[in-house]
């Protein structure tokens, strides 16, 4: 197996995630797209782990960390979306424009 | 034939009825057949019932309904002397005491054309359903009733079924055999005659 086949797959997945983050209106879907990007990162990490033959499996360990952080991110993200939904009655990111006020 | 039922069953019952009526300022008190009826002016309706609850110990709300006294009777038997009848609607509310089982019916006479009276819901929350039922069945309007949706009947139903003027559709199509039911059976046997003889003879 080539290392690049995994890296390219990861790049494609990442780009799809980026596309999702850029185009989705619904905040939950934006979060989902971020998950895609993180998954792409994980693929790269594990692939590099195998490629560089790390005796300490650092790539895998960091993939685990990424997963953990992603879980934390989803928890907080959903809580924020829920809060905004409660306040603004909408999960539309276009309306999260407090930065402009 | 049958003797008229005894007017007075117990003196204590009579005196209880009189006392109760007096204490509540009733217009008229009727006590027969173990049933006390206290006539109340419709203006004093809520006030009297509240005072019955608070002062006379009648804190149990049993039921609320009405009687349509009408000359124009579509089904069933009319009253005995229709010409003498004063057409009216009587609202009846039954309260009782949970201490000793006393109870009384509070009656208020309403105009049959536009029957209206104050709602009892502020006094007895449980009156709501009874009043809704009376509203749809008799067309009485209860002032202050929070919810006047039909309780039993479909929302689109029109008319007040328990009014005497409301005809039973089934009855119009096919007369009820009740009229013949009480006649002697065509093949009444001797045994039945015997029975009849026994009962009729002694009464």
């Amino acid at each position, binding site marked *: 197996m080539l290392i690049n086949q995994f890296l390219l797959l990861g790049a494609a997945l990442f780009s799809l995630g980026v596309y999702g983050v850029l185009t989705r209106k619904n905040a939950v879907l934006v979060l989902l797209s971020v998950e895609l990007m993180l998954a792409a990162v994980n693929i790269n990490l594990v692939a590099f782990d195998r490629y560089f033959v790390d005796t300490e499996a650092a790539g895998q360990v960091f993939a*685990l960390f990424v997963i953990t952080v992603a879980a934390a991110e989803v928890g907080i993200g959903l809580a924020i979306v829920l809060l905004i939904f409660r306040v603004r009655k909408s999960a539309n990111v276009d309306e999260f424009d407090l930065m402009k006020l | 034939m049958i003797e008229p039922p005894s007017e007075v069953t117990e003196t204590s019952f009579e005196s209880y009825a009189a006392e109760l009526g007096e204490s509540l300022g009733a217009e008229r008190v009727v006590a027969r057949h173990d049933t006390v009826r206290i006539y109340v002016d419709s203006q004093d309706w809520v006030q009297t019932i509240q005072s019955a609850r608070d002062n006379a110990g009648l804190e149990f709300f049993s039921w609320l309904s009405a009687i349509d006294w009408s000359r124009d009777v579509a089904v069933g038997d009319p009253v005995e002397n229709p010409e003498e009848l004063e057409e009216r609607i009587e609202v009846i509310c039954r309260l009782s005491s949970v201490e000793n089982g006393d109870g009384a019916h509070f009656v208020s006479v309403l105009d049959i054309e536009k029957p209206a009276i104050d709602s009892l819901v502020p006094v007895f929350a449980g009156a709501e359903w009874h009043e809704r039922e009376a509203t749809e069945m008799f067309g009485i309007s209860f002032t202050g009733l929070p919810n006047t949706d039909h309780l039993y009947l479909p929302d689109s139903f029109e008319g007040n079924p328990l009014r005497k003027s409301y005809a039973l559709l089934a009855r119009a199509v096919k007369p009820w055999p009740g009229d013949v039911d009480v006649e002697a059976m065509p093949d009444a046997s001797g045994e039945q005659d015997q029975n009849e003889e026994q009962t009729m003879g002694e009464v």
Partner: protein
Amino acid sequence: MILTDWFTMPENFVYSAIGVTMLATAYRVVTTRNVVHAVLHLVAALAASAALFLLLGAEFVAWTVVLVYIGAVIVLFLFGIMITRAPLGVETELSHPRRIRIPAAIVSFALFLVIGSTMVGAFKDDVIEPAPQGTMEFGITRTADVGQSIFQRFVIPFEVVSVLLLAALIGAIVLARKDPTEEESEATGTMR
């Protein structure tokens, strides 16, 4: 390595199947017009990534993805979506209009080209080597090794991550709970 060689290796068939599934489902994640469908497609994409990890011999990571992502994160997503009443059927208001979608597509495709070309330029046709003796068993990383690595070399990041999780937990609770109502605050008197 030429393409025909590549196709003679059986694991590359598995890889191709996984890759196609993954890209297809990921595409649906970012384009579908129903929120729940998007989440379910994400499940498929993540399951595909777990399969990819299995292919790479990273078993522990793979099942962690299943346990944490599919078992917990996605369920949380679905729970959150459904509790705020996800509509059945198609919604139109999920994506931006074409005015934004097209530049976004261009940018993300350019990003893919940049990353891809860099990768290709850097690694060319390097092959993933078999692992040295002692770290792998049947081409699968031993879980014990991963565990040792976490608890020896990476113990501080591990602790940091655990604190982060705790903070996220508390933060999520704080964010999601209702504020105390007015009556509650009035109930307590003040005296200085």
